[in-house]
């Protein structure tokens, strides 16, 4: 199957005169008390209006879609409308060939990460009223596009699998079938954030290093390894084995602490911090330094 690389940097300047360009990450709203009210105000402004979305289109099989383009849709705004709702409406009412992944609509299946107004976001948890119009919706950058907003996730899954992402308790004492391993609430708290990853791929797509080094394990896989490495239920030997995987040439030392992964993570996982902590662990254990 032929594929198309979506490189947002190389896209043509938008023709639409109203287009204000990609929103700068600094303008992103932070979570806080004021957000709810601001949100309601913007929603009130949009009542009765349509929302203008520009959606990336590409299909290797269809003649007029082989050359990537943007399609414009004007979708009637409804209270609480998300980016996902807007593309679903466009698909169901205007063009049934518009293609994207989605399932749970509640930020847990991780299948609808898109590049929205220049930033990786989950379609289902991004309110359309919070965005500048027209809202530009593209597939995740630095991944091969299969069709429209669907990217090939195989490389992402391969990297996740490369860190041995499963509990290995061979070193821990044998437990009775009805006796759990003990874990302190503090230790559970330590791994809690890392355990929230929904494999959406937003972090990997935002990472400049991953874009240039195809072998780099990347923030998601390293975070997955962090979850196990920091879990006291696994023994010391396994922990060392995990650190050896992570300190390899294309592991933690590739991270240049640009924080882009942390910034786009829809589950607020402190990915960059986790990567730095693993670097420190590797130093403490005197493992090879690249």
């Amino acid at each position: 199957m032929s594929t198309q690389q979506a490189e947002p940097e190389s896209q043509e300047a938008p023709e639409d005169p109203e287009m204000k360009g990609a929103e700068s990450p600094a303008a992103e709203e932070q979570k806080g008390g004021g957000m709810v009210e601001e949100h309601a105000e913007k929603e009130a402004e949009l009542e009765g209006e349509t929302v203008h979305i520009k959606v990336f289109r590409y299909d290797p099989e269809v003649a007029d879609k082989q050359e990537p383009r943007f399609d414009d849709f004007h979708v009637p705004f409804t209270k609480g409308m998300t980016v996902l709702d807007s593309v679903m409406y466009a698909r169901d009412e205007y063009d049934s060939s518009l293609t994207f992944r989605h399932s749970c609509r509640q930020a847990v299946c991780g299948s609808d990460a898109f590049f929205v107004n220049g930033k990786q976001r989950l379609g289902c948890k991004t309110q359309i009223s919070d965005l500048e119009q027209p809202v530009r919706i593209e597939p995740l950058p630095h991944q091969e596009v299969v069709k429209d907003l669907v990217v090939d996730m195989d490389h992402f899954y391969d990297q996740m699998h490369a860190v041995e992402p499963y509990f290995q308790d061979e070193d821990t004492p044998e437990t009775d079938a009805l006796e759990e391993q003990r874990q302190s609430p503090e230790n559970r708290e330590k791994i809690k954030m890392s355990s929230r990853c929904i494999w959406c791929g937003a972090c990997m797509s935002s990472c400049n290093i991953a874009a240039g080094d195809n072998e780099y394990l990347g923030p998601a896989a390293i975070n997955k390894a962090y979850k196990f490495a920091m879990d006291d239920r696994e023994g010391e030997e396994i922990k060392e084995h995990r650190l050896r995987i992570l300190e390899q040439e294309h592991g933690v030392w590739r991270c240049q602490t640009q924080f882009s992964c942390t910034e786009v993570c829809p589950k607020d996982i402190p990915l960059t911090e986790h990567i730095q902590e693993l670097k420190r662990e590797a130093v403490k254990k005197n493992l090879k330094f690249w």
Partner: protein
Amino acid sequence: MYEHDVIVVGAGGAGLRAAIAAHEAGADVAMVTKLHPVRSHTGAAEGGINAALQEGDDWELHAYDTMKGSDYLGDAPAVETLAQDAPEETINLEHWGMPFSREEDGRVSQRPFGGLSYPRTTYAGAETGHHLLHTMYEQVVKRGIQVYDEWYVMNLATTDEADPNDRECHGVVAYDVQSGTIEGFKANQGVVLATGGPGQAFDHTTNAVSCTGDGHAMAYRAGAPLEDMEFIQFHPTSLPSTGVLISEGVRGEGGILYNSEGERFMFEHGYANNSGELASRDVVARAELTEVDEGRGVEDEYVHLDMRHLGEDRIMDRLENILHLAEDFEGVDGLVEPMPVKPGQHYAMGGIEVDENGQTCVDGLYAAGECACVSVHGGNRLGGNALPELIVFGKRAGRHAAGDDLGEPKIRTGYGDDVEDETETELPVAPGEAGLDATGGVAADGGVTADPEGILERTVETARERVDRLMDKEDGVQHAEIRAKLQKAMTDYVNVFRTEEGVKKALEIIRECRQEYQDVYVDDPSRTFNTDLQQTIETRNLIDVAESIALGALVRDEFRGAHWRKEHQERKDEEWLKHTLISWDDGEPSIFYRPVILEGQNKTYEPKERSY
């Protein structure tokens, strides 16, 4: 053609557990899923896993609560198996590294849930399903089990003997979503359907868009009856705008429901004088809608769920995910204001009829999880009982399919001499007939003379012809139109409150949808990632599932569990301690009944009035 010993369709909680169990029993297993495993809807479960783990609790109490919660429509052998196996299976997840919430001494935490006589719900924050799903997927990766992700299973390859009890399932036919290729998957030992719920039959649901009842519809058309489909659980606390679920854990931790007048209505209006907000889900859902109907709803639509008094520390520790959901999907900060909630379609208690080993009446065909009805939930599922069902019965189905001897089942399946004959209820329309052409149905040229390869090849051919027909057709009706109409009819007429007239109206609309589907076409001409095609096939499945729900709701003229009928405001034990079974017979549904099994291992569960 691909070939394995056991094929598991679907990769949520039940499918993953079945695959691991079959693998451990020595089988060559493959999972075929229309999503990637970590995208499965099990990940959205929030509350927890009921298991009698602590001193002072025991499996018999769990079984008793479950029988009572089911309104005495659960089968005791299944309920007792669930209660007996849940502790070991839950601890097994812990041994696999699942990050459960912990007590100070390092043991797993448990909390109260609706309808439970002991706080036996084991949890991981308010994201238990996410952790369960990922923990089990990790074990699948560890074992190197083959996963065909984004392959949509369209049909079962089943022989076509006249009596479904004589039929055999030899595999499935699936469509590679990425490339459009249609291939056969031969199962030498068994096919396990673990395709989840049918929530997309309704338009206000907590279920994922992928929950389209594919397994239900395929098994049904292959001859396995659907059981107790009228019992649909409406969760009392879903967000009004999207249907996103707010966990029962909020009420478990002490969250309070208020009406627009600030009354704690569960007590003040006498819906549940003992348990209040922690009465079972059917009771709370009806109470909320009654408040709205009597003019005490907020904005005539919903009620308030308040957790502010629990304090930030407790909320952050046990319900943090709920804060994010309320903020992201409703724009409400749960720390400073109450959350709007209303009932939303949440769970199907009914499903493909199976015995406690997961087997249907079709040889080699198994089902587990929400798509199956064993039956443990009867008329109403208790919160925290879905996840143990996945692991307990997923494991049993996987083991049995792989050839492990689990003993003779106590629960019978299929049409036999222990069933009562068809209903005499008059149906408003002749259901079923139209649309047979598009189903694929049971493979022709089957029977004892055909070899498994031949049956599979024939089924693949039928599926390819069907897809070509849908793709070649130039115009007609689009699936989205039919689906929206179907969902609206179900929500309007087969919701929490049901009337005979309403359900009949729904059946008429479903019949219209069935006829319109004859003219359905796929507009997207591409074979690459054609979601238009996939959803068109799913919509056909939803029509069958919706029809079975409405048919069940019409014939059961009593009030039991989640099934409320305006004209019949009493539970009729004399007449209705029996399961409704609907089987696809010569192109249309027929209805029959099988008695509930109330005899357990040590005692018989006597039906009592259910009060909370």
